[in-house]
């Protein structure tokens, strides 16, 4: 955690990010049902990008990094490099749950950051078929 977080900005960010998550989930479900609706995928990408950008602005680089994983995957889908299969959908929904968990922990002050980040990193690396070790040191 950075040394100095502005509590007002942090509260503003948590409220903002919380408002995006249901919309991202709904967009993903819609796209999974109907892959011709590319605009909903682009919307999910935009909200995820906004969480990434705003979180690093308020001093939460780890959360930004977590959002960056999801953004990268959504970008691959938008550009047609990746299909929305079950594994992809499950991983994205799981990542949204973890982002929400992180936000809830921030509000409650009961931060289990390290365990949560470890879970996110491991699930991402598994999803991408990367070796399990890696990334944690950077985080």
């Amino acid at each position: 955690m950075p040394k100095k977080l502005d509590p007002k900005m942090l509260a503003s960010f948590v409220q903002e990010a919380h408002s995006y998550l249901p919309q991202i989930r709904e967009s993903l479900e819609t796209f999974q049902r109907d892959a011709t609706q590319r605009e909903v995928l682009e919307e999910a990408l935009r909200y995820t990008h906004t969480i990434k950008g705003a979180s690093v602005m308020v001093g939460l680089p780890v959360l930004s990094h977590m959002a960056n994983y999801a953004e990268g995957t959504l970008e691959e889908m938008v550009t047609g490099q990746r299909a929305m299969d079950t594994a992809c959908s499950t991983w994205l929904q799981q990542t949204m749950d973890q982002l929400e968990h992180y936000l809830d922990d921030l509000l409650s002050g009961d931060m289990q950051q390290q365990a949560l980040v470890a879970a996110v990193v491991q699930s991402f690396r598994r999803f991408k078929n990367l070796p399990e070790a890696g990334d944690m040191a950077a985080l």
Partner: protein
Amino acid sequence: MSKILVVDDSPTTLKMVTKTLATTGHHIITAGDGEEAVQKAETEHPDLMVLDVVMPHKNGYQVCRQLKTNATTKNIKIILLTSKDQQVDRFWGMKQGADAYITKPFEEAELLATVTKLL
């Protein structure tokens, strides 16, 4: 005193940039998406814009290109402020006519120095 239009779809980021720029004494106005940005650029005639890239309706590249090719808005200085941090993003942003490109998280001093330089 100059007028600065800050554009970002994130209310939190908008507040943070506005707070930073408020120290300059310039008049700050805001917009929450690309279309509102174009509309305010045309009606409010700001001297400078701090413009996000990934936004609903029109992205920052489209806004920048539109304003820089319009005779009435082409002289507005534009700083792209974005978390798109790849070289290709910067190249593309400057190609749209932006006067400066700053990545998030920005250093307050860098943003303030760039604003001072451009105004």
